């Protein structure tokens, strides 16, 4: 059940020498990270390791004090989140950032149009386009994502009434609807029950295998990350302390120390 990345000449995302300082705290110190095309890469680390900060830097919501971010061969260190989104970067959030007045379907529709029919964001208000049926491609893509994420029966619900697990799925759906090359997933399994987690894990693997979308996954459940991801980075106190495949991470003594004796690998660990 592991997506193994083929080595590629140009990674879809490369962060090199990233440094972020919050006052006197060095949140990230010379962090290097690569996400290959059509791969599922994991990022783990204890609380406060800097995972979400690194996501913020990669998605453009946090400006780094040093280092560079390259997306599909183009440097985007100074680029806004919108520019990165248009280049194919989408993300989810640890605390879901949903549009509370919109339905589940509207989230996906908006993300789809924002990437594939940008002009409609401004022209629609002057035309009757909102009265016409959406195009077949849009309907097919949105319906497909809703089905893949088991959200079809909730499609017309306003997201505010959904439980946490469902809101995470909506965020994943919104990110995937935005025609991405890379999706940064910030703890997408948190709040989901066992069945939902398994379903989402399968969906993520399908996305990588069938749609060739790269995923960078931050997850507290290290065992799941080791099971799903071909390449894993371990972050602690703002630095990468280990990287490699699941086996290498399991064997790494620095990783064990970082987790202070906890068994980060769950029951099926070594």
């Amino acid at each position, binding site marked *: 059940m592991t997506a193994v990345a083929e080595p590629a000449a140009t990674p879809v995302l490369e962060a090199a020498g990233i440094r972020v300082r919050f006052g006197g705290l060095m949140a990230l110190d010379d962090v290097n990270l690569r996400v290959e095309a059509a791969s599922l890469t994991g990022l783990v680390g204890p609380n406060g390791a800097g995972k979400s900060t690194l996501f913020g830097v990669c998605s453009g919501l946090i400006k780094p004090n040093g280092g560079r971010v390259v997306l599909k061969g183009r440097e985007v260190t100074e680029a806004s989140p919108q520019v990165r989104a248009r280049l194919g970067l989408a993300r989810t959030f640890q605390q879901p950032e949903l549009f509370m007045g919109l339905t589940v379907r509207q989230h996906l529709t908006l993300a789809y149009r924002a990437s594939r029919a940008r002009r409609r964001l401004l022209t629609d208000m002057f035309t009757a386009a909102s009265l016409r049926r959406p195009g077949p491609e849009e309907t097919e893509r949105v319906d497909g994502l809703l089905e893949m994420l088991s959200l079809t029966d909730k499609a017309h619900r*306003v997201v505010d009434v959904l439980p946490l697990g469902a809101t995470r799925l909506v965020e994943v759906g919104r990110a995937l609807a935005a025609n991405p090359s890379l999706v940064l997933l910030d703890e997408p399994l948190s709040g989901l029950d066992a069945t939902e987690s398994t379903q989402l894990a399968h969906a993520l693997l399908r996305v990588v295998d069938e749609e060739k979308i790269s995923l960078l996954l931050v997850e507290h459940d290290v065992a799941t990350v080791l099971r799903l991801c071909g390449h894993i980075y371990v972050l602690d106190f703002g630095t990468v302390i280990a990287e490699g495949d699941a086996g290498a991470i399991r064997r790494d003594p620095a990783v064990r120390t970082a987790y202070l004796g906890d068994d980060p690998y769950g029951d099926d660990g070594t």
Partner: protein
Amino acid sequence: MLQYVIAGLALGGLYAIAASGLVVTYLSSGILNFAFGSTAYFIARFFYFLNTQHGWGIAPAALVAVGLAGPALGVLFYFALFRFLTLSSTLIKVVATLGLSLMLPYLATLLFGNISILGKAPGLAPEPPKVFHVFGAPVTMNEIFVFIFVVLVVVVGAGVLRYTDVGLRVRAMVDSPAMTSLSGTNPTAVSVGVWAVSIFLAGLVGVLSAPIIGLDATDFTYLMAAAFAAVIAAQLRNLTVAVVVGLLMGIAGSVIPQYLPPNSPFTQAVIPSIPFVVMAVFLIYFLVRRGRLIETEGTGGALDRAIAVQGAESAVKDETGEVRLSSRPVGWVPSILGFAVVCALPFILSGLWIGLLATGVAYGVLFLGYTLVTGEGGMVWLCVPTFAAVGGLMTGQLAGLHGWPVLGAVVVGGLVAVPFGLILGALTIRLGNLYVALVTLTFGLLMENLVFSQERFLNQGLGVTVLMPGFATTPKAFTYLALAIFAVIAVFIVNLRRSTTGMALSAVRWSEPGAKTIGLSVLHMKVVTAGLAAFIAGIGGALLAISLGVALPNNYATLLGVAWLAVVVLCGIRSNIAALVAGLMTTLLPGVAENYLPAWFQQIPPILFGLGAIGIARSPDGVLADYARQLRTLAARGRARRHRGSPQGMAPAEAGLELSAADGLGPKVAR
């Protein structure tokens, strides 16, 4: 020079005390009290009532008005209003306090009598106040009282906050209300105390100001608006900076005129603009230095953020704990029925009433500017009257003075307002909603002082005559013309709301990070909304000028906009039909009061508007949306009952679920 400095210190002292009161309440409750000026006026008027009208001595009158009524009002306001606002959005907080601000002067007239108080009113010093000469500058006893109280407020305030247990609790509340209450401090007790102190300070400002600026409610509101500059300089939190900047503004107001040509219109326009220029300078400084200015940044812990309202306006927890959303505020059928009723009114009304109806519909068009910018765009703009003024005054100039066709002038008036909206939208993009409210209020007051006060617009106080278009010269015909324009704009807004643009606006309103990461430009969306809203308000302002027959700056006063916003939010900020109803209420209710009810009752409509705006704290979607929701709930129950009788019928639980999906209501509300 020294004498001008001393002369300016008195007004500066008033700014300083007002800014202190505003900062203290903001610090402890997150509410910027827009009613501070009106409260100051109310207590000053109560002092005048006791002291001058009933012959009480200065000391007992001051003790009762400031020392007892002030804190008592603070406690009353807290329990009646402010405690409901703590977790509300900025719009609700601003509108509720604006509602209070709107009603207090009228309540004062109702309680203390409708008498005109010309010139300066008596203060804490016996009349006539003694005059001292300090460094050659004449200083009255009343001004010396201001100096004394500034020192007392600073010393006692800083001492209590820094060195006492009470101060520690207040400062802890500032950092994290949730954690403070978890650690055993009763947040209600702290809040009640802070509000009592704050309204006491408002009363103090009131009685100290009366002998310096007179006893006029509008002047008190201007005093508070000026004090906002010091509050912004203090970034809403730093008491010392607020006091120092307040004092410096007073000094600047006294010193700068010495370097300007005396008695020139420019000098007269510049002096009242000083606080607003100070505000603009500080905002630009903060924006350049930090990139953005968000009032909630750097405060509260994770728990506070977890319990805070997410997104922008129109979400609040009701009695059942459900978060209510205005995704479908009123609904199609009530809206169309309501519009049809208004369309029938010209056949029913005549004489004075048809004129009021025409003006009401013009207001309705103008209010659609609020529906768009605040309802859809989520921006709390207090300068919509400014855009209306641009449209109205431009129409006056083009049609009234240069012979343009009226409708052409209306469109050009609307278009001239657009760049103002675009620029303001772009400039305020990096500001938190509260700062946006303050900046737009300042912008409105600045335009009023510097631009609209020109003689070409004022025309000796008479304004510029604007005639109705040739094909609609009667109020009845003009009403239909205005209704047609209203319908076109309303359909445009409905289409916008349903379109991709509307979804994108909603996305930006609820989560900027979420919107950005799917590639939406927050700047584009907000600027487009702002430009459109300015255009609509400009058109509305022009129609207002035509219906009144005159383009006069006074009809677009920024502070009038306070009442307008209160009425629009009261009816429903996200509903087009609510804008029309609000417009009609603005003209017809006072008309009814003036023509059919006793004189004292004329104070009632503004008080009702104010009370309605205060009620927004409990009902953020507005009364029309509430009624529509109740009707829909009743209809759903009726349907559920009918289905229960049918074997293939929908189960009641399903019916409730359907309703909750459509309305954004939870099953609890829909049951």
